[in-house]
């Protein structure tokens, strides 16, 4: 399946884009998505271990399942306020 990954803050700066597209086999987990990103976007790879993933606007774990049409986002720990 094709997924569009939204990027924020340092991740967006590293990629130079607000979102990237990846293709992963179904069924997929967050870990599968991160592995694909790591392989296909070398600029993002160093930042992935410290990054957070949200699936459908909820914080996800490596084991969280990702389905077609899910809203996936990748960003650093938050620093707002």
């Amino acid at each position, binding site marked *: 399946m094709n997924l569009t990954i939204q990027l924020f803050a340092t991740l967006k700066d590293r990629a130079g884009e607000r979102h990237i597209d990846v293709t992963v086999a179904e069924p997929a987990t967050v870990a599968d998505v991160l592995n694909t990103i790591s392989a296909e976007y070398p600029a993002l790879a160093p930042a992935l271990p410290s990054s957070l993933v*949200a699936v459908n*606007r909820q914080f996800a774990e490596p084991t969280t399942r990702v389905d077609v049409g899910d809203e996936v986002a990748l960003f650093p720990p*938050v620093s*707002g306020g």
Partner: protein
Amino acid sequence: MSHPTYFAVTTDTPDLNAVTALLKQPDVGAIITFTGSVRGATRRDGLPAQTLHLEYEAYARMAEEKMAQIAEEIWERWPLVKGIAIVQRVGTLQVGEMTTLVACAAGHRDQGAFEAARYGIDRLKQIVPVWKKEVGADHSVWIEGDYRPTSADNN
């Protein structure tokens, strides 16, 4: 819950009078409002010596959902709290400008609204997806958050 709520990610300066008015109900006797603003001097290593301005970015849709989640967490902990407003500004913010607002209403001042407002801003800084960049004269630095939310931080 049928209490008034207001959750916003916005580029506008929040109007404290208007936000407070949103939380007013006949049985509300106390409203506690926290406002955060951009400080002029920073002290941390690696950052520009003098902050010229901050740039805030948000994952707006998730941010507003997490604000609503914080309100639910507050009502669980302080059931006498009534209306709740949470606002995060984004965009370019100069020294002295308001960046964030958390307001909690209650019948009386001893019904948890002080604690709830404090919890609200602490929690906002943990789970509301917003990031800020300090922009100095010659370079910019993204501020690093130090809390790693897990699925336990979902509602």
